[in-house]
């Protein structure tokens, strides 16, 4: 086995080649692989959307992947693609657009003309445009509000956190802006922002140098417009705790997000210290975090509770963080999965028939109080060591497939790193407890943040009143659960129920008014 490992380390070559065609290329050659993965990352993203045309980058990219080329119609592309079981998709984020193509190695040469056509000679056909635009329109008009209250709350948090900046709107745009986008807008946006100078090429798997040279040469035919370099987005820091309660019909629970801007990214070595603190507080989809332990395990309040020091894509479906959303503007956030509302609790337990609100206010207090404790007291030596050991192994699992490995390498370039996972491993090894506790004090606080709560219309006004006036919010257990609850938990409940928050504003927003 050792010999095999040595062989593999020789075969997997990570190379950066930024000379030829002035293109930045990330290579991950895996000769034993049965497939080839190609990622084309453009430094554009939704921050390039003109005012009033929010969603234009996403619509342009979506039309490229869901439309035809000058050589082939969409149908003809699908017909060629199907027997190969090859596929492609695009992910647009705030600052990048990434096209990912995956194909069995046997079909690479048959597949490649399709890739080339999509990027270099897209048809931008009117009918394809109407179809693609209509599907995005229905997402911004209806989908975001009516599929996952958690995702809705998360997008709303960004909307308010980044108010007045190019980060504010959803990548997909909003009702009026998508409506206003024309096919000419798309064609111009392609010419201005899907350019060769904004492109980074990534390739992984079983490919030849000759193939890569062809790819690089062809991508040199991309538009060549002058690049408007975007400025880093700097959101206004919230003044006090500003709570946005989004009221909708037929919500079954209250979905909470909260956060504040944080001036640090993966570029900074201190990020490793914050990774440890964050993992301890609320590692994504893990039962080890403090928030998960207090809210879900001890008190049975919901399905899970986590914290984040950067954007985490599709948290509801991903267990491990996917690559592909590098950002230069960052924020800290907490995700409280839907907790019970009064209407439901009253129906289920007669002993709770007189409650006015469900668990949202209590959950908000508990979560912020835990951050407060961490800022004041720091992590213990034991917790620090355990969490660091966990992360040192765990981050290696982020790159189990050639596609994720390549993705992380490309993201590394965005942050001016060579190999983020390997470098974080080294930084974690060097960390001290003081590094972590100093980083917590430097970057985290509890008095200024935005909170979004998507909840049922029946809950909204009483919840707003309770939060606005810092009213006591005792935890309302069913008798069944309360009977066995340890004394120290009930004691902590009393402290949480009266924990004062620095509330400056509470606002109820009708769901129908969001993302218009």
């Amino acid at each position: 086995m050792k010999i095999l490992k040595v062989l593999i380390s020789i075969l997997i070559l990570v190379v950066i080649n930024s000379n030829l065609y002035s293109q930045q290329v990330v290579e991950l050659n895996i000769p034993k692989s049965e497939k080839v993965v190609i990622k084309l990352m453009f430094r554009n993203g939704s921050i390039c959307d003109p005012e009033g045309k929010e969603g234009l980058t996403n619509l342009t990219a979506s039309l490229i992947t869901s439309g035809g080329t000058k050589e082939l119609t969409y149908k003809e592309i699908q017909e060629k693609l199907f027997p190969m079981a090859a596929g492609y998709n695009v992910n647009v984020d705030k600052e990048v657009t990434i096209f990912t193509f995956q194909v069995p190695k046997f079909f690479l040469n048959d597949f490649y003309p399709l890739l080339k056509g999509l990027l270099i000679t897209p048809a931008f056909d009117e009918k394809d445009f109407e179809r693609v635009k209509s599907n995005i329109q229905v997402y911004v008009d209806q989908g975001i509000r009516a599929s996952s209250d958690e995702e809705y709350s998360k997008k709303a948090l960004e909307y308010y956190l980044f108010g007045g900046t190019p980060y504010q709107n959803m990548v997909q745009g909003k009702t009026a802006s998508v409506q206003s986008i024309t096919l000419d807008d798309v064609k111009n946006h392609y010419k201005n922002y899907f350019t060769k100078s904004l492109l980074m090429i990534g390739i992984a798997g079983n490919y030849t140098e000759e193939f890569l040279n062809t790819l690089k040469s062809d991508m040199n035919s991309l538009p060549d417009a002058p690049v408007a370099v975007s400025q880093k987005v700097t959101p206004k820091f919230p003044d006090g705790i500003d709570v946005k309660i989004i009221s909708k019909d037929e919500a079954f629970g209250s979905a909470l997000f909260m956060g504040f801007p944080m001036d640090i990214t993966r570029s900074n070595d201190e990020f490793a210290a914050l990774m440890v603190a964050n993992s301890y507080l609320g590692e994504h989809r893990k039962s080890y975090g403090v928030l998960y332990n207090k809210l879900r395990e001890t008190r049975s309040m919901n399905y899970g509770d986590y914290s984040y020091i950067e954007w985490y894509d599709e948290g509801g479906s991903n267990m491990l963080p996917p690559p592909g959303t590098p950002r230069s503007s960052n924020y800290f956030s907490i995700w409280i999965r839907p907790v019970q509302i009064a209407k439901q609790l009253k129906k289920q337990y007669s002993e709770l028939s007189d409650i006015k609100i469900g668990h949202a206010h209590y959950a908000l207090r508990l979560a912020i109080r835990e951050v407060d404790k961490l800022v004041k007291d720091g992590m213990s030596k034991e917790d620090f060591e355990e969490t660091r050991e966990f992360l040192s192994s765990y981050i290696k699992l982020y790159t189990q497939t050639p596609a994720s490995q390549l993705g992380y390498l490309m993201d590394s370039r965005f942050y001016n790193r060579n190999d983020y996972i390997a470098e974080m491993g080294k930084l974690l090894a060097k960390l001290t407890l003081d590094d972590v506790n100093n980083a917590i004090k430097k970057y985290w606080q509890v008095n200024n943040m935005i909170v979004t709560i998507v909840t049922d219309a029946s809950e909204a006004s009483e919840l707003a009143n309770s939060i606005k006036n810092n009213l006591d919010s005792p935890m309302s257990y069913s008798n069944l659960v309360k009977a066995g609850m340890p004394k120290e938990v009930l004691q902590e409940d009393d402290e949480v129920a009266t924990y004062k928050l620095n509330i400056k504003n509470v606002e109820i927003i009708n769901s129908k008014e969001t993302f218009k």
Partner: protein
Amino acid sequence: MIILLSSLVLSSSGLKSQPKDKILPYPILQYKMQNSLNVVTVPFDSPGIAAFFIIVRAGSRNEVEKGVTGFAHFFEHMMFRGTEKYSKDKYEDVLKSIGASANANTSDDRTVFHMVGNVDKLELMFEIESDRFQNLKYSEHDFKTEAGAVKGEYTKNYAEPLSRLDESISNTAFAAHTYKHTTMGFFEDIVDMPNQYQYSLKFFDRFYRPENCTVLVVGDITQDKVNALADKYFGKWKKGTYEAEIPVEPPQAETKFVHLQNADVPPYLALCFKGPGFSDSDIDLVALNLIEGIVFSSKSDLYQKLVINERKLRRIGFYSGMSRDPGLMEIYAQMKDKNDIQYVKDEIMNALNGIKTNPVDKKMLSEVVSNRKYGFIMRTDNPSAIANTLSSFISLSGNPESVNNYYSLFDKVTPEDIIRVANKYFNETSLTIGTITADETCVIK
């Protein structure tokens, strides 16, 4: 690596190449222990990493008693509540020290506990998992508390109207079989879960037994090592005796209807036909899988007509599904205009009726087979993906080799098989129609 290369050979007919022989190009090494626990090792070139899965062949299908639907899923949660040796907190500390990605999930036919991590920690994985599978011990208070997390999971899912529609469709389509309820269970049973402590003990005693489980390890490991660890940690696990009597679903006599009023999402149509139970030797399920590609894929005439040219639909698809007993196959269509519901339903039925009489073009058939085989290869490029795939087949048949058997059937399907299978399954008498529109009712023929 040698096995991998030899399994892909050039074909002289039609397509450039097709995977031949066994679809999974890695050996599936099985060891049946004396207590009937099946131990499966799949060596895979993933330096330093292994996936460690335990598949329990118990899911919501096994919930035969009234009032305890959702219990297989609830029990998946309870498995994280500790033992005498490893309390909940200690278990979590050990899990954290392993640095693995670990979790569990439940569906109709099985519950899967999974870890992916450092292969050097494999023995520790065996130790903590074997302990909780044999010695799980939780307090009644912990049991009642965990029920709230299940309700929280239901609460999160409820926001999605399609999950509410699926719940109603299952409840309507099945009269007797336990597929009538979803894996989450009926909401009234979820609310009542804290009162079912005694039943939970019975559930563990019934299903968490070696004859019902498979230990699966995929990654940088040998079979000898895995078998030795299995002997050491699972050797004393005692067999059980319980066998659930799953009610047999009577034949459906007429089309059934379910409607959900919701103005906040686009109009939606679901046509759900009763399908076959899983078999790795019968061709019906594979033929249905191919029909998905022939009739509903993005290259199909129906897709091109309704989605691309007429733009009546935003999307359309077909899940032929795989379930241990005959389950539901779902054709779904998201519409632009609710007034098109009847038209869309008729177009779908016309397309299905078309393949009942007209033999499918052989080139088309060959292309769909190619798509399925290469699709498999594209998906199985890491230990987790391979283990997940094998888990499905283990849950369906008990035998991981079913994956190779199942995929070997694709080459045997003929145009005549497609006609026979389409006639057998796509009948209005076995159909349940689900709709979502802004209206209180939806009339559809």
